[in-house]
């Protein structure tokens, strides 16, 4: 490869810490969650529940920090959806990538997410995670519904929570794969570790 690259600092310290911690927590929540779902036996039901609940609180704590960080740094703007060049990016992943075309989007500190990522991660942040946290907390506090005046059904709560978990599995598979689509297969992963992304210079 002789392509010239330039380095941009995309992911700040907190962001990277948050990302990897969240990744680990969600993976472990998935592993314990599907044991609770009786998909397999690993830790044993009781341990799985205890772990799941503890991990859930860790995730909630992390999310609180992340929200604070996004709001105070203004980084939330990175997730404002845009259709600008959306079809170009989609076209790239559907067709162009096989023909070694250039990626139509250039990351920069001001705009580090391509329009497809913006949509996906926004959905992740405002749909899947809130659904998981809300249904998870409801599930956890099932015994208090009555005294708190909550009218819900446990079977539907569990159904949504499980649906969210399945969504996360598919997200995870595709997400991990997409990290390999940088200019080298590990480029994106490296960027999320070091903060520095190498992008091809024009």
């Amino acid at each position: 490869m002789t392509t010239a690259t330039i380095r941009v600092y995309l992911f700040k310290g907190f962001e990277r810490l948050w990302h990897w911690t969240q990744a680990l927590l969600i993976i472990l929540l998935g592993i314990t969650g599907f044991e609770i779902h009786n998909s397999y036996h690993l830790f044993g039901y009781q341990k799985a529940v205890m772990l799941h609940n503890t991990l859930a609180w860790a995730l909630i704590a992390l999310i609180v920090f992340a929200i604070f960080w996004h709001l105070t740094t203004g980084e939330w703007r990175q997730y404002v959806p845009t259709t600008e060049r959306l079809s170009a990016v989609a076209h790239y992943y559907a067709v162009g990538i096989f023909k070694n075309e250039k990626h139509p989007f250039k990351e920069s500190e001001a705009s580090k997410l391509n329009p497809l990522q913006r949509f996906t991660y926004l959905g992740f942040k405002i749909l899947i995670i809130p659904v998981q946290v809300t249904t998870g907390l409801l599930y956890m506090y099932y015994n208090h519904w009555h005294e708190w005046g909550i009218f819900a059904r446990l079977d539907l709560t569990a159904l949504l929570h499980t649906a969210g978990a399945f969504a996360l599995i598919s997200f995870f598979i595709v997400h991990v794969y997409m990290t390999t689509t940088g200019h080298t297969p590990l480029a994106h992963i490296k960027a999320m570790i070091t903060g520095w992304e190498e992008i091809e210079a024009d």
Partner: protein
Amino acid sequence: MPQRKTLLKQLLIIPVLLVVVVGLLMAKQVQVSRAADASPVALVAAEDNPAQQGDDEVSHSTADHTKFEVLQQPFETVQDVTNACLSCHTEAADQVMHTIHWTWEKHVPDTDQTLGKKDIINNFCISIQSNEPRCTSCHAGYGWKDKTFDFTVQQNVDCLVCHDTTGTYKKFPTAAGLPVYEPTEFNGKMFNPPDLNEVAQNVGHSSRNNCGACHFYGGGGDGVKHGDLDSSLKVPDKSLDVHMSPDGANFQCSDCHTANSHEIAGSRLRMLSQSDTHYDLPNDDHNRATCESCHGITPHSNPKINDHTDKVACQTCHIPEYARGGVPTKMEWYWKDAGQFNDDGSIKSTVDEQGFPNYNTLKGSFVDEVNVKPEYYWFNGVIRYTLATDKIDDTKPVEINPIDGSYDDPNARIYPFKVHRGNQPYDPVNKTLVIPHLFGKDDTAYWKNFDWGKSIQAGMDYAGLPYSGQYDFVDTEMYWPITHMVAPKEDALACDSCHTDKTQSRVGSLEGFYMPARDHNNILDLLGWLAAAGSLLGVVVHSSLRIFGSKKGR
């Protein structure tokens, strides 16, 4: 390579942070569980509580009964002893006469039924009516040999059967509640007349032996009826019963089955699936016959487990199996098979491979078991009985005492039961269960003549009930709540005893609620795994195309 180093450092911080967060949360849970180990109940159960030691302990009573002259007089009869007791305990007989131990009858407002041993039918020896002298050997009285028994004669109250501490006072099995005055044999066992002065001068609080003399032998033999009450509880290991074991709390029955004016708490005819006053404090009703009376409703250190106590009875997890003391209990009893003799015409009596009785000419065939897993049902404490006056549906097994409750019933909890199944005679024309006359020396008693027709006619006539003259056998089921033989906490059911596949779950058949691990939505699971497989497939196809494309590009 400075860049690589910082990269490693930054990577390290992730697991470190995670370990710290998770570790902190776990440490908190461990602390909570340590603190809860020193619960008040554990302290109460301390081994050196003198009030709970066995008979050979110093008495703490303020009265020494050996010093009472009235108890030194020569006693002709047991009734004389009762009179002597009543000369000081003036209200005792009157109190007893108001209790179910005397009346064998109780009105239950919830079902507006009058129940009790006197009235109900079961699927063991069916009914006491016309069989009194045999059954009333467990009556707290003397001489109830037939329906002419006068329930108002105070001297016929049997004080000794409950208050003897010598262990020498025994009622004869077929003498309507009386002991013998001459040495007498019963089924190869010798019954000697008690020394009434010795017994009367050594009365005291009722122990497990007193209550057990009747309650361990319900159904006519050791452990037959209840499954959680048998002679193994006289001196149980801690592994059998943490409360009654001398190595545990060494409780007597009356430590939980508290008495108010001789009325003992904890009748099975109307149970409390959960106590409304959770702790029984001095100003409460002095009814301590529920687990919560001492343990409260949130006794676990793990709050997740406490979250279950509104819907799951303590007994459900803490009595993993009943009949654990080695004494078998009857699980099935088929009266229809009764009346078969050996070839030589003698009474046939056989045992199974484990040595448990499986046939007797007098009673039919049985299945006896030890270490039995309970069945679980929603139960709010209300039991409705099928009496001999009630119409039955003979197309399916008749529930002799259907239990009430469902998930939606706030008073109901999942409760463990022994279900005793079998068949027994009924009237296929009138569609009622029938009362056979079993015991007696007359020519209608089944156990003498082996003629069901005569026996049933005699029993029904005796009870004043209509009988068509035809009989057949109908399948019956009877529910016995399991509440004794509480195991050490290490032996309690684990979460996955219930939270597992429907076919494995102990509560797999209970309906009306969602339970994690047991329940799931098949469609969602299918779609979810298909989506995951689809994503994987997409990734494989996409990456193959990329590899292919890049090769071509080169």
